[in-house]
């Protein structure tokens, strides 16, 4: 079967506008979460991870008129443009597919009655139209809105279109922006942490929200591969808990099935995995469920972290930027610590990464879970690993 190579990537978050800027901050244990009292976002002070608007507009003005695009579209275009600059792929060609993921899309427009855009711009497909137009792509894009697993689903979906050889290259881009809509909703659930979130910790009390965009370019074209031992996508799966629309499974069954199906597809029959990039939202129920699923999969010995305490929960970007961080963990042979974790707070003895560590990393498993009972997993490894 043809190999699916990871060719290029980009991350735009509070921690920077490139994957390198972001990964350096993660290595240094630096979080982008800060308190805001911006009335456009919150009624009371709120911890949140935001993209720098001034830099966004100034960087974007080199590509186009910032007023012609929404905040999310600008982030997506900048991110894709940066990833494309690392490759020779021509996005306007018919062999390149765009796959998008977002949970709430241009939701900031719903709150701003005087926004200058067409009323249809609130639709998710309007975002992919706008971004694909920018890159002169004529191929019909795919758009996924699968709650918090959207980013992982988008990678899995893009990979399927490379496996069936319909396209040679897939540009997967996902993201969400922060406005008042999402924080107020999670606050109404009493699911927002007062301090920056503490994944898997005994004192965790909820999520911290964030905004951002991630882009990953996948390709089956070996000629585009620059490294001797590149990171490849090996398998992925989505499942459903079929239990509750807003609460995770009590047993971790849905996530366990997603992990099992992913490793089956990857042809990975042993449990020798170097790293799990967890979902780790830091809500009491999610982290507990995840620990059960990891234990069930007999992966409790594997080092696991959550990056939500660096970027916040970036919804449609989360799965993507966390996979990109995993790819860089392989490339730089290091494991990022779970910021905010000090006292083990889940019932299973899973191996949470407490300190930054330089060590050989040859593969990783990414997991995600979300509203609607959805779960997803994806597995990446070096070309010559297992």
């Amino acid at each position, binding site marked *: 079967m043809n190999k699916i190579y990871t060719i290029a990537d980009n991350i735009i978050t509070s921690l920077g506008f490139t994957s390198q800027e972001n990964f350096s901050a993660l290595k240094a244990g630096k979080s982008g979460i800060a308190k805001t009292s911006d009335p456009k976002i919150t009624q009371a002070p709120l911890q949140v991870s935001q993209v720098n608007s001034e830099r966004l507009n100034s960087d974007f003005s080199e590509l186009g008129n910032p007023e012609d695009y929404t905040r999310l579209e600008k982030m997506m275009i900048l991110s894709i443009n940066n990833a494309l600059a690392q490759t020779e792929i021509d996005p306007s060609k018919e062999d390149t597919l765009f796959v998008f993921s977002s949970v709430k899309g241009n939701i900031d427009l719903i709150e701003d009655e005087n926004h200058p855009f067409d009323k249809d711009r609130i639709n998710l497909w309007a975002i992919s139209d706008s971004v694909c137009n920018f890159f002169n792509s004529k191929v019909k894009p795919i758009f996924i809105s699968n709650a918090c697993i959207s980013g992982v689903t988008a990678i899995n979906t893009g990979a399927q279109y490379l496996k069936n050889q319909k396209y040679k290259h897939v540009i997967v881009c996902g993201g969400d922006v922060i406005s008042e809509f999402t924080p107020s909703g999670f606050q109404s659930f009493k699911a927002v942490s007062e301090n920056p979130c503490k994944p898997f910790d005994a004192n965790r009390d909820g999520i911290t929200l964030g905004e951002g965009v991630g882009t990953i370019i996948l390709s089956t074209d070996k000629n585009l591969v620059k490294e001797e031992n590149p990171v490849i996508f090996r398998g992925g799966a989505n499942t459903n808990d079929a239990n509750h629309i807003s609460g995770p499974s009590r047993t971790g069954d849905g996530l366990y099935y997603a992990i099992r199906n992913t490793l089956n597809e990857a042809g990975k029959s042993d449990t020798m995995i170097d790293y799990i990039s967890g979902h780790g939202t830091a809500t009491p129920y999610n982290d507990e469920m995840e620990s059960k699923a990891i234990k069930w999969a007999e992966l409790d010995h594997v080092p696991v972290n959550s990056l939500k305490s660096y970027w916040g929960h970036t919804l449609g970007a989360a799965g993507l930027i966390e996979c990109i961080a995993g790819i860089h963990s392989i490339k730089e042979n290091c494991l990022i610590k779970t910021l905010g974790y000090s006292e083990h707070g889940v019932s299973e003895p899973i191996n949470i990464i407490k300190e930054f560590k330089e060590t050989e990393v040859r593969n990783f498993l990414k997991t995600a879970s979300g509203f609607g009972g*959805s779960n997803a997993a994806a597995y990446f490894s070096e070309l010559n690993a297992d």
Partner: protein
Amino acid sequence: MPTKTTNNMENIIRKYCIIKPHKVIVDGKVEFSDPENTEYGAFMKSIYKHYEVKYPKYFKMDNLCKVAFLASEIILQGNEQIKELDPGKVGVILQNSHSSFDTDSKYNDTIKDKSNYFPSPAVFVYTLPNVMIGEICIRNKFQGENTCFIAKEFDTEFISEYVTGLLDSDKIDACVTGWADYIDGEYCAMMFLVEKSKENIKDNISFKPELLNQLIK
């Protein structure tokens, strides 16, 4: 009429249902309409009663979930064999245009007036289009592949290609798939129960985009 197939290797449409103003079409025939209840909520309730759906959680659902859920109930009636499959091998793959925008607007109404600020978790949870998939999975204990795709219009070519890929790679053995959309009182659900064909049945309709296009005309 769609072309029938006798090829037993194909994926087939076991049953399909279209709900649109103000009728329910099942396997190509108008099976139910209610001229006295044409308003959306009333018509949905009338469908719920007609098909004897007994599921109190239905009444908590938002407008989008209601039409998607009812269409899924109708195609699963008389197809109890699906419940005997491995739950992890039954997928729910839907497409939609307006996401959860109807409920997004309702939710936004609860936060825009700061002197009358009452965000509700019961409304907020429906501000995600994939929750309609979650509702169908919970009702039927389906735990397989589930994704909500967004497109301006129902893309039969994409949906049939994607779902066929899942069936042919053995990720799933059966799938509830199709389209469900609700915006400003306009609605439409087009739902198909797709299975791998095990026997050679003359009336099987193969799961192909050109046939889907004929069925939804």
